[in-house]
């Protein structure tokens, strides 16, 4: 950390978010807004069964329909493109944009129909006749592990994609030496981020330039490379336009299969192709479901509350294909003990294929389910010992003076002050009064409970989990880049090399460069070159952009400042050490040596005044490596992300024991993401994350029926929180700067979501604890609560009667 936030002019100030202007005016430019004359539209024939052999496909009637240009089946497509990339070393789990040979989940795309309009394509898709031979299918992850289970990819030999056990530290010794042990199982239901904009892509092939132009609603690392590889094009034959606004993503807007298909048709037909999912295509086969995970935990602890060791098995239901999603078992390794001092850990990561929709990256990349498991474990330990839940946590939390803190799995946490954050939240909430309020509600006959969750947000995304889970993968860098250019009029242009989905990257880059160059951020122009003009980057995943884009922007600006000082020294003859840069000018001992206009004049017009060897123009760039992420894993240990934000949730929930509709009476979150670059943005991320977590805890699930059909494929059944369900949330700020970043910033893009499900589940359990009930699967539905209470009350009544 080189600067204190109090000295900042623009960083940490509640300045407007510059992107907002175009969006409130309805002038965002989303992929569906891109109209290219002559564009053709794609619609799909969706598979009917959870698993079936495709015996024949008759497209003749469909091809005769008005406007239809082309229909392609999976077999035809597979003959002309390479399979999509797998993250793990599972080459026999082949995946194409369309089903090849077999349908492996209900709704999988079997055929793509291209027509002059989307309506015509849909009309024709209705007339494609597919004959299937049904196969046995498997939906449940545990069943998929058994010998008898149908194998989703027979060539792969089993349903197991990943089966890796890590032992960090003396687990068995710690278990032997602990006073107490307990086991628990919790299940994270299949939900996702479900952005309001579905995935969309427009692709256009120029046969003379031999280049594929792509406009897409993406948030995907190495997107252009993957498209090129699948289509057999050189990397520089794909040009991805990053100046497309993305209508929400939070992880899932990956769109490789969609883009490969659109690119394939664009080349084949010589016309622009537009593929915008409709909502049902998106829900069933957008391949954007999130983790579905069963945790089995054994925990060893002492009677004084010290948690010594944990054995965790995480079984992930990846759906029908591998993709990148199983890595979501890897990232949590970097915070596998949460904010606690747990001496040793055994972690068994298991991922299996089933006949469900494919899993994709979701906000937190596996951290939110893991946090839910850890926090539920802590509540159970407290209950077992009859200890206050807060006290148990306080005893186990890493103390401020213990940072930097190395956890058993090889990651060092940068900084934190967890006890203070918790104290501030309890003070703000008046915890004693909150407890009194809970007890008052109980006395009225309501079920009332307080939930707490203390969670980490690992941030600064690198990809260390890739080589950790797949030794053939040697990736150790996950860079991000910024280029600054000052033109001949003195205006500043900053290039960022990614799409954005509401994270405010333009504001971030402008604020940081403005801070460092001490010029008004609003006077800075932000541009997004296309992928061919871009410096290397890895997109806004892993809660990384404040750290990585912010860091690259600051360092590029610092390079520029150094260049300016060098020029000023050369021109004025004053030694560089005696010069300072401030207020966009160079100051010497006797005042301004060189103002902005002169700096620009020298660099753009007066080559004769430049120091020897310096290039003309005023331009700098920085390609930033993830701080601390410099080495491959060793002995199953690795430094995962560099920075660790902390959040502490405190929630009061009440409900009627019969209707059992959980009403959130109070929600306070303590949040420490180091130095905040834009308070509006961080606040929005936190509130939005909590809303998303409320959905995961209570409402949202991709549920399947016994035939393997998705039951929640529209917004009538997949229930996202509305303004009625999200309460007012009070945020208590704390700032523990990170030593690894330019301003002390950490990540906050996943915040809220990482702890809300754990806290809400905890509150519900506190409300029903007197009845001895646990509800260990998310989402916790109202009827499940009510039915469990009724059953417990019936047993109790019977006991009394007897």
């Amino acid at each position, binding site marked *: 950390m080189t600067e204190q936030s109090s000295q900042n002019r623009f960083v940490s100030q509640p300045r407007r978010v510059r992107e907002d202007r175009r969006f409130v005016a309805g002038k965002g430019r989303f992929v569906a807004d891109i*109209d290219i004359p002559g564009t053709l539209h794609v619609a799909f024939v969706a598979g009917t069964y959870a698993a079936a052999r495709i015996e024949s496909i008759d497209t003749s009637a469909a091809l005769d329909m008005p406007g239809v240009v082309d229909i392609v089946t999976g077999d035809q497509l597979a003959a002309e493109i390479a399979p999509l990339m797998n993250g793990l070393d599972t080459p026999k789990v082949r995946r194409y944009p369309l089903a090849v040979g077999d349908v492996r989940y209900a709704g999988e795309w079997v055929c793509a129909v291209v027509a002059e309009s989307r309506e015509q394509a849909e009309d024709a898709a209705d007339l494609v006749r597919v004959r299937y031979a049904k196969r046995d299918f498997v939906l449940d992850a545990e069943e998929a592990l058994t010998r008898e289970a149908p194998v989703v990819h027979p060539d792969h030999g089993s349903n197991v994609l990943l089966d890796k056990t890590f032992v960090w530290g003396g687990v068995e010794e710690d278990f032997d030496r602990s006073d107490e042990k307990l086991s628990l199982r919790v299940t994270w239901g299949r939900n996702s981020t*479900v952005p309001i904009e579905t995935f969309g892509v427009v692709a256009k092939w120029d046969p003379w330039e031999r280049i594929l132009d792509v406009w897409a609603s993406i948030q995907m690392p190495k997107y252009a490379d993957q498209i090129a590889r699948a289509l057999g094009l050189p990397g520089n034959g794909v040009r991805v336009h990053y100046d497309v606004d993305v209508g929400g993503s939070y992880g899932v807007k990956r769109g490789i299969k969609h883009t490969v298909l659109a690119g394939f048709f664009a080349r084949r037909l010589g016309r622009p192709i537009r593929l915008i999912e409709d*909502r049902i295509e998106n829900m069933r086969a957008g391949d954007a479901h999130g983790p579905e995970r069963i945790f089995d935990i054994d925990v060893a602890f002492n009677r004084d509350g010290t948690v010594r060791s944990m054995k965790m098995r995480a079984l992930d239901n990846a759906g029908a294909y591998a993709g990148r999603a199983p890595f979501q078992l890897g990232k949590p390794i970097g915070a596998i003990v949460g904010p606690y001092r747990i001496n040793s850990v055994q972690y068994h990561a298991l991922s299996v294929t089933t006949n469900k929709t494919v899993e994709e990256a979701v906000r937190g990349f596996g951290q939110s389910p893991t946090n839910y498991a850890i926090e539920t474990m802590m509540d159970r330990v407290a209950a077992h010992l009859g200890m206050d839940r807060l006290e148990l946590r306080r005893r186990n939390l890493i103390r401020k003076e213990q940072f930097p803190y190395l956890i058993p799995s090889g990651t060092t946490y940068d900084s934190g002050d967890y006890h203070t954050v918790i104290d501030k939240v309890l003070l703000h909430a008046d915890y004693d009064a909150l407890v009194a309020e809970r007890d008052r509600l109980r006395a009225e006959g309501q079920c009332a409970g307080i939930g707490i969750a203390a969670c980490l947000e690992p941030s600064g995304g690198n990809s260390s989990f890739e080589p950790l889970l797949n030794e053939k993968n040697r990736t150790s860098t996950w860079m991000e880049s910024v280029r600054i250019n000052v033109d001949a009029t003195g205006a500043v242009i900053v290039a960022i090399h990614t799409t954005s989905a509401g994270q*405010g990257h333009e504001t971030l880059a402008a604020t940081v460069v403005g801070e460092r160059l001490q010029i008004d951020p609003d006077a800075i122009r932000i541009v997004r070159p296309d992928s061919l003009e871009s410096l290397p980057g890895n997109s806004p995943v892993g809660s990384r952009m404040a750290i990585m884009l912010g860091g690259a922007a600051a360092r590029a600006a610092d390079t520029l400042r150094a260049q300016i000082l060098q020029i000023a020294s050369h021109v004025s003859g004053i030694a560089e050490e005696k010069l300072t840069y401030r207020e966009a000018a160079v100051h010497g001992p006797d005042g301004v040596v060189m103002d902005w206009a002169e700096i620009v004049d020298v660099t753009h017009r007066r080559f004769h005044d430049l120091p020897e060897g310096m290039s003309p123009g005023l331009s700098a760039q920085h390609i930033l490596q993830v701080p601390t992420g410099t080495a491959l894993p060793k002995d199953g240990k690795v430094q995962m992300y560099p920075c660790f934000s902390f959040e502490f949730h405190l929630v009061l929930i009440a409900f009627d024991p019969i209707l059992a509709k959980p009403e959130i009476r109070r929600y306070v979150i303590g949040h420490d993401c180091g130095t905040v670059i834009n308070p*509006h943005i961080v606040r929005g991320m936190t509130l939005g994350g909590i809303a998303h977590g409320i959905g995961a805890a209570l409402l949202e699930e991709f549920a399947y029926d016994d035939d393997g059909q998705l039951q929640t494929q529209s917004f009538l059944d997949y229930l996202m929180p509305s*303004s009625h369900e999200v309460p007012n949330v009070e945020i208590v700020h704390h700032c523990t700067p990170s030593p690894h970043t330019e301003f002390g910033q950490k990540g906050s893009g996943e915040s809220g979501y990482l702890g809300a499900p754990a806290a809400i589940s905890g509150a519900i359990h506190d409300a029903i604890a007197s009845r001895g009930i646990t509800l260990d699967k998310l989402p916790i539905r109202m009827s499940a609560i009510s039915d469990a209470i009724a059953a417990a009350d019936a047993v109790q009544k019977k006991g009394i009667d007897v």
Partner: protein
Amino acid sequence: MKVELKVNGRASEVDVEPRKSLLDCLRDDLDLKATHAGCEHGVCGACTVIIDGQAVRSCLVLAVQGDGLDIRTAEGLTDCAGELDIVQDAFCDTHGLQCGYCTSGMILAAHALLLENQAPTQDDIRDAISGNICRCTGYGQIIEAVELAADRLRQRNARPDEALSAERGMA
């Protein structure tokens, strides 16, 4: 089928298939892209427009049913390029959005509320936007934006369709 649509005070004749939704017609035939498709089955509210002063989902209205109605989209909130009206400006002040996809619908739902109710309570606001799903913000900063806009309108004794932002340009 020919139909005359009056959108943002301008009448245009369009020739559409009877099955085409007003949403698709606004976007495809009138090139008004501020209105967004979210679920296309009437739940998410991204396609909200104002018809005869009330917030309505344009995916649930056929274009041919729009004949003669007074339809307003986000493009019609201000007259002049670069201007923001008082509700839009309030959304900028509180950062009542992130990705911007639901924003047009949200702002129009807020307009419809403020046309009817100049002093909405927080419950009124929650109810008015409850049919508009926002996946980014958790609604807090949206509710603050509507409260702020209502305040400013009352101070100026103006209706939401009359009041432009006093703060031009980037604040």
